[in-house]
């Protein structure tokens, strides 16, 4: 019995897929082959462990949707359902809406006509154009050329106003800038004066201190000379 054959028979024995005669023969082999018997025991214990996994696996509800269309297959009936019904309903609804619209328009005698002033939509009989004896009012209206002249004049005025406003704004900005520069100049000038005064005062103070220290040093030297002279005269 080669290795492959042993594996195959081991699996048959382990899963009880052997005939009685073959089983007895294999058990005899197992008795004479402790290594094979140990392998069988290991396999059996692994199987026992796998069988201990009694995890409850509960499938949820199944909704089948065909990936290539909107048609779904309901588990309970197994028939194409929601997508097709929806499509049919939508088509029926659109057809009903169109039919209803035409019926209403027909009932209300809808008329659509084109006039010089645009499209005329009427329900019932269209009103006849009013015939009046009033004088032609178009004379009271301005002509196209006059309109363009007015527009040009208006634009020119607007341009002048804009130019004036811009000029004023520019001048204001310039004035503001000058004021700011003047303020800054004054400020820095004052600071400079103050600094100069401080420096002058500091110099004067230093000069005075130096003078006093010079005097003190001189006085000390004189005292020393006097003391030395006194000592020499005593000697």
């Amino acid at each position, binding site marked *: 019995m080669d290795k*492959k054959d042993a*594996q*195959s028979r*081991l*699996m*048959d024995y382990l*899963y009880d*897929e052997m005939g009685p005669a073959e089983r007895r023969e294999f058990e005899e082999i197992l008795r004479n082959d402790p290594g094979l018997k140990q392998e*069988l*025991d*290991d*396999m*059996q*214990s*692994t*199987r*026992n*462990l*796998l*069988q*201990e*996994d*009694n*995890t409850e*696996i509960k*499938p*949820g509800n*199944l*909704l*089948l*949707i*065909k*990936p290539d269309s909107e048609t779904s*297959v309901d*588990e*309970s*009936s*197994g*028939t194409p359902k929601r997508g097709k019904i929806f499509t049919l309903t939508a088509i029926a609804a659109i057809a009903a809406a169109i039919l209803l619209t035409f019926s209403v328009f027909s009932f209300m005698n809808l008329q659509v006509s084109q006039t010089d002033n645009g499209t005329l939509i009427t329900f019932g009989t269209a009103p006849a154009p009013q015939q009046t004896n009033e004088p032609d009012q178009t004379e009271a209206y301005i002509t196209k050329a006059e309109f363009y002249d007015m527009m040009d004049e208006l634009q020119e005025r607007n341009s002048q106003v804009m130019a004036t406003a811009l000029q004023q704004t520019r001048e204001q900005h310039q004035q503001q800038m000058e004021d700011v520069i003047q303020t800054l100049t004054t400020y820095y000038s004052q600071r400079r004066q103050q600094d100069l005064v401080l420096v002058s005062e500091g110099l004067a103070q230093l000069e005075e201190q130096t003078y006093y220290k010079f005097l003190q040093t001189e006085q000390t030297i004189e005292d020393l000379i006097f003391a030395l002279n006194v000592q020499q005269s005593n000697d």
Partner: protein
Amino acid sequence: MDNMDEAVLIKQIQNGDSDAYSHLVEKWHGRIYRFAYRFFADEADARDITQKTFIKTYQNVAGLKDPDKFSSWIYRIANNLCLDELKRAGRRKSTSLEAYIEQSGGLEGEETAPDTELQNKELGIIIQKALLMLPDEQRTVIILKEYEGLKFREIADILEEPENTVKSRLYYGLKSTRRVLTNWNIKHEYLNNG
């Protein structure tokens, strides 16, 4: 419902009986979900695979020539969808057994109770983790054999592989599982007692 009834059901579906398909879904829904759940240890993935499996079944059942083979056929669809999902996800959902053992060196860092206090729930999680460590083809065989209780012949039919290949995968799958669990210090009586 035995295979013969199932074959009748399939024929009814092929003849356009939508109620028959509903019965079929009702019958297989749980099994396919369990299979996918064991494969990914993830509810969302399991739901997704279950849904796709039944859509594919619905689309292709008319072309199923041998209704007696429906069981193998639907498991094959589910298994292929699981493998496709792994490929699509760039195998992020699967961890190499060798790499995991090398880098983990046991379950010390993870929240595991001592052997004596090992609860069923924790044991279930550990087993699911251990199965995820296995190569896909070994995991599939273990799930189909241990948890779905199929015969070697049926598994071979599903995977379209020789029976000996299936047995070999199961043999190495069990050995690998034992190796993972031993590496995780699962010295439970289950592993020590034959």
